[in-house]
């Protein structure tokens, strides 16, 4: 802990942010996202292809030698801030971060090349709620074929490849095109990152490596970078609520001039500023490897409350319009609430922290 983490954004990171934001402004407006949630294709694969083709985001964490960008978690975090701001329904976190980390841990170069080119979307077949230290459900390996059911798998509905932990301790790559694989969407709280049930009836696929360390690494990166998505959600919610309260007039004055509301927004701003520091710290620690477990646990123990509260405050302060299906604030509330469970609840991360910093339970 001698070296200070770099908690700022570099010029390159700001340029990446601007490019992603421009693209999302053009291709991912709130009305479009709401309409898509009720269509047959809640995931926006055309947008995903655009992000991948024009900016190489699908392979941001993949080494250049495998066709990726060879960037770091710091850049991925900036992308997630922007995707969070837009509640973009694309499999970036699940495929380009979590599944990619598992594949990197296994040295699965061929699949990494496929992912980097965005011809393939992958999902780690571990329930979205599982924390980096949590118990990982698995399927059975019987005579070389995989059998069993896994639930709560985020973005499985658009995955071409599932990375499946089996009871022999291995991590297997299974193609969803395989007739022995059934993916059934579950009706999900989060309309823009739905989960699905995966059923394997004798599916076959290569063993990529040991599931234990690969899954842990994937979930830890997922948890650490999720904080940046949560920051993006909270930042949009605060900005949009402040904008609305300057515009909305009641009692012959701007609603944002009432001190009761000003103080609530000022407190929220303070929490968002804290989340920014914690999220940058987690992203930087994932790059440097210094103090990573503590940095990730701190960010995740803090972020959920901020993102959820930002959404709840936004809804309340928008008044009746915030309660309508038409206004996008519900997309953010649903994402923020689901994110508070994703990769471990704040309580699970506090528990991990209790061990890591020697503040043990009674």
């Amino acid at each position, binding site marked *: 802990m001698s070296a200070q983490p770099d908690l700022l954004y570099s010029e390159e990171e700001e340029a990446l942010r601007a490019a992603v934001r421009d693209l999302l402004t053009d291709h991912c407006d709130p009305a479009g996202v709401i309409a898509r949630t009720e269509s047959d294709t809640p995931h926006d694969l055309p947008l995903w292809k655009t992000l991948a083709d024009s900016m190489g985001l699908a392979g941001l964490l993949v080494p250049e030698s495998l066709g990726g960008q060879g960037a770091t978690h710091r850049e991925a975090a900036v992308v997630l801030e922007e995707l969070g701001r837009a509640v973009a329904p694309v499999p970036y976190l699940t495929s380009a971060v979590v599944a990619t980390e598992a594949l990197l841990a296994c040295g699965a170069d061929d699949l990494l090349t496929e992912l980097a080119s965005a011809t393939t979307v992958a999902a780690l077949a571990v329930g979205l709620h599982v924390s980096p230290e949590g118990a990982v459900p698995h399927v059975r390996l019987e005579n070389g074929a995989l059998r069993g059911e896994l639930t709560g798998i985020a973005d499985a509905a658009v995955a071409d490849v599932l990375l499946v932990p089996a009871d022999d301790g291995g991590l297997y790559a299974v193609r969803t095109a395989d007739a022995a694989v059934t993916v059934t969407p579950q009706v999900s709280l989060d309309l823009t990152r739905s989960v699905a049930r995966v059923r394997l009836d004798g599916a076959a696929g290569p063993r990529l490596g040991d599931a234990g360390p690969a899954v842990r690494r994937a979930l830890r990166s997922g948890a650490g970078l999720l904080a940046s998505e949560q920051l993006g959600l909270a930042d949009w919610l605060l900005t949009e609520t402040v904008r609305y309260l300057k515009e909305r007039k009641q009692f012959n004055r701007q609603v944002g*001039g009432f001190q009761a509301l*000003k103080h609530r927004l000022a407190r929220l701003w303070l929490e968002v500023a804290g989340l920014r520091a914690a999220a940058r710290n987690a992203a930087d620690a994932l790059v440097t490897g210094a103090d990573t477990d503590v940095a990730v646990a701190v960010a995740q123990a803090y972020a959920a409350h901020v993102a959820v509260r930002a959404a709840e405050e936004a809804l309340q302060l928008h008044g009746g319009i915030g309660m309508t299906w038409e206004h996008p604030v519900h997309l953010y509330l649903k994402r923020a609430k689901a994110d508070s469970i994703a990769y471990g609840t704040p309580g699970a991360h506090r528990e991990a922290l209790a061990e890591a910093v020697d503040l043990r339970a*009674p």
Partner: protein
Amino acid sequence: MTDAAHLRRRTEELLAAHPPATTDRLDFLRARFDAGLAWVHFPQGLGGLGVPRSLQAVVDAELAAAGAPDNDPRRIGIGLGMAAPTILQYGTEEQKSRLLRPLWTGEEVWCQLFSEPGAGSDLAALGTRAVRDGEDWVVNGQKVWTSSAHLARWAILIARTDPDLPKHKGITYFLCDMTDPGVEVRPLRQITGEAEFNEVFLTDVRIPDAMRLGEVGDGWRVAQTTLNNERVAIGGTAVPREGGMIGKIAATWRERPDLRTHDLHQRLLGLWVEAEVARLTGVRLRQQLVAGQPGPEGAGMKLNFARLNQEISGLEVELLGEQGLLYDDWTMRRPELVDFTGRDAGYRYLRSKGNSIEGGTSEVLLNIVAERVLGLPAEPRTDKDVAWKDLAR
């Protein structure tokens, strides 16, 4: 030669000419000031060399390594943090050359005569009067919450010089000699039992016009320099992980397994996370300052600091159980320093109640964040165009 190398060489020359081991402490500090190594961003001749403030670290590191004495900055924080930057910005050449050297060496302690019983959050409503009499001003009034007044040689003072103008416009800033016979300092005992602060009664105190800082009627603007520096001083110091109060309760938790309950554990972990996030926010703020992109986070640092101190110390008293029923010492004392970690949890609990009041209440700071950072509408100002003498009081 780079600035850093130049500073290192000058520091070595200072150390060679005045070896700390054999030099009187004050002599060393005066020599350091005269060498321009006191605050390097100040101008030459006033304890500095006119180089960037960030280079002070180069000098401090060299001097610390050589075991040189320092000027005990915590004891003279008001002088260093508030009076000095204001005198530097608005002072005459005579004021700067007379006052800054003994201020920096600590030979002359400074205090701040701003708040009044009738002017707290609404400081600009202050009523202490200064009336011109020949070459002097004659000052009458009462100030309060003045730390170090009983030790101070000088005070920064704001007083009303024109009650017929609206409140912000009729204020003038003075440098007040605390040895004037009209200055009476009385200790103000607090809920902790001790008297960190004073009440200061000013009765026909004579201040020469040469000790006015800035123009007549411009005191509010001058005071902004002082107040901005105060908030930086209160919320902006660097701390390591578990620095401050969270470190005390964490140590108790580790040493006393018998006190642990599940409820206390959850609350402790929650506050530990918040304290760590507040610390990281401060780290980020300083990185922004160093990179020349000051962020608005500074406005919120003191809000965090106040709330966390109060919640953590409150939890600590509860954690201690039977011992939490006790208090270390109610004796009326006059401490020179506020030491949050040197006393028991009960003291921390009581003293931290002041953190959300002193240096701008949390409610006022929330207004500042809402208006200056978020751009929300300002509070209605019914007093803006009213003469001070006609305000409700």
